[in-house]
């Protein structure tokens, strides 16, 4: 194994398992020579993976599925043998929108149904008064952020395509846009929510783990054709990422992990913000209020790294719900087959049984998700674009 592998990533905390695998030598210990390539857009990561400039990548789980289905772009089958992170996003709103929601809320501020219903009242009042619709930012059309935000909005009766404006913004521009008033809120991954709070321009309204208990966020994505030709490399990558994920979750290693991740060639933000993210202990408002959650970002614990096909099916169901994909049993099968727990188990010598039982999606609203009946499941939701 001497050929160097090129792996693309976006500077976000959930690239940790890849960055630590390389920086702490877990990849080298597996005989891999990995060069990490920092990228500026998901479009670049996807295209460079698709045309073979990257051997693997830190990628939005829904992009891996969209690419395998050929949605919008060339169809390139991708496999995901390792989850780099579950959850990890948050919804942040401007202080003005936060105040408007809190003026309308009937219930606990951490209850997503209470905030969604309050937001719906804010939206209605704005429409009546002739004000501009609210604008919310998210990172990519095929992103868990997009689906989490839409799920929450729609649960309260807000149609994300009709009642508000939903816009794609690169994460580094989110905070400035919130400060400048071009957007009223956003759903984005770490560290950007914390940066908005630290700058006093945003209030964290929800961790996405309030909306879904477990959501596949970023995956280690590999072209299927390459994976089939290089099974040892794939297994070695999975083992290296797995050891890194375990390392990251050890409390005594977190300061070191945060220090490594903070370096300019990786994420390039303050180590303290990274540490807070890893510990799930986030400052949620400018007055210093801290909210802790053991589910904020899962990297190596609760069996998070093992790809779960139920989650792939949930992501596909959102693509159908919002008109990005048509519904068919073949597409559902393709989407599920992107997630490869078999490759994960083989690499780590596991027998295929789930260690952690709470593998469900666990959404806060609607019926429990049924991966075998997407149409029936989606019929329970009033708002959607499905044809």
């Amino acid at each position, binding site marked *: 194994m001497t050929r160097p592998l090129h792996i693309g990533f976006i500077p976000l905390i959930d690239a940790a398992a890849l960055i630590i695998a390389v920086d702490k030598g877990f990849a080298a210990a597996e005989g891999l020579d990995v060069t990490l390539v920092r990228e*500026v*857009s*998901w*479009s*670049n990561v996807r*295209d*460079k993976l*698709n*045309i073979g*400039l990257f051997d693997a990548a830190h990628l939005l789980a829904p992009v891996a599925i969209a690419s395998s289905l050929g949605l*919008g*772009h*060339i169809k390139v089958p991708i496999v995901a043998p390792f989850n780099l992170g579950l959850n990890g996003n948050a919804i942040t709103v401007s202080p003005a929108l936060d105040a408007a929601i809190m003026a309308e809320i009937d219930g606990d501020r951490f209850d997503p149904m209470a905030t969604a219903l309050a937001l719906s009242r804010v939206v209605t009042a704005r429409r009546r008064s002739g004000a501009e619709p609210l604008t919310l930012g998210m*990172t*990519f*059309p095929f992103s868990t952020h997009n689906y989490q935000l839409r799920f929450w909005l729609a649960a309260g009766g807000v149609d994300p*395509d009709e009642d508000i404006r939903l*816009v*794609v*913004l*690169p994460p*580094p*521009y989110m905070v400035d*846009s919130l400060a*400048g008033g*071009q957007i009223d809120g956003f759903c984005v991954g770490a560290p950007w929510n914390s940066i908005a709070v630290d700058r006093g321009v945003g209030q964290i309204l929800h961790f996405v783990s309030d909306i879904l208990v477990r959501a596949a966020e970023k995956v280690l994505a590999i072209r299927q054709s390459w994976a089939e030709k290089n099974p040892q490399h794939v297994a070695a990558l999975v083992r290296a990422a797995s050891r890194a994920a375990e390392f990251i979750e050890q409390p005594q290693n977190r300061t070191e992990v945060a220090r490594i991740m903070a370096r300019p060639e990786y994420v390039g933000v303050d180590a303290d913000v990274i540490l807070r993210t890893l510990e799930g202990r986030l400052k949620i408002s400018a007055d210093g209020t801290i909210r802790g959650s053991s589910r904020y970002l899962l990297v190596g614990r609760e069996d998070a790294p093992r790809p779960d096909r139920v989650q792939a099916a949930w992501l596909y169901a959102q693509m159908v719900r919002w*008109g*990005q994909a048509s519904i068919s049993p073949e597409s559902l099968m393709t989407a599920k087959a992107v997630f490869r727990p078999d490759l994960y188990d083989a690499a780590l010598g596991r027998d295929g049984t789930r260690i952690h039982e709470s593998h469900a999606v666990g959404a806060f609203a609607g019926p429990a998700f049924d991966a075998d009946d997407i149409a029936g499941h989606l019929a329970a939701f009033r708002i959607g*674009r499905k044809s």
Partner: protein
Amino acid sequence: MGAEASPRIVIVDESPIRAAILQEGLREAGFTDVVHISEMQSLLSRIYAVDPDVIVIDLENPSRDVLEQMFQVSRAVRRPTAMFVDQSDAASIQASVDAGVSAYIVDGLKKERLKPILDLCISRFNAFSRLQDELDRAKSALEDRKVIDRAKGILMKLKGLTEEEAYVLLRSTAMREKKKIGEIAQSILTASELLK
């Protein structure tokens, strides 16, 4: 739009120099309807206002992801497709990624008409990179010059040498240690800082 009309091209680029080089190249090749957008704020509404046939964007621009939204918005009358949709021309995709440029065609423009535009963008992007490299090299040569001059000054003072003798000493040391003169000069500056 008539078959002979020049397609409307939008260049999304925060580098004014590169955009100018590209714009000039396109004009020379007969593409006269070119609009440059350098402001990333409200990028989509700016693009919709121009209503282009082709969008060209550099790959270092995070706002590439913003363009991806154009594939989704059903309210937009004309929808773009990415250059990467067409798998038949792998070489040109590779060349454009290497050059650092990507292009999107908006519905209605024939694929063949993109090819000359893309080729031109690739060659102009490459020309710009070469220019940038030369500029960087010139800058670092200038830096070296300053460092060498200061090192000579230190040697002249400490060892009572003439400027020429100081330079000969630097050069012979560099040759013996198989290093650049600039590197030797830099280590003299560092050492003299430490010994102050």
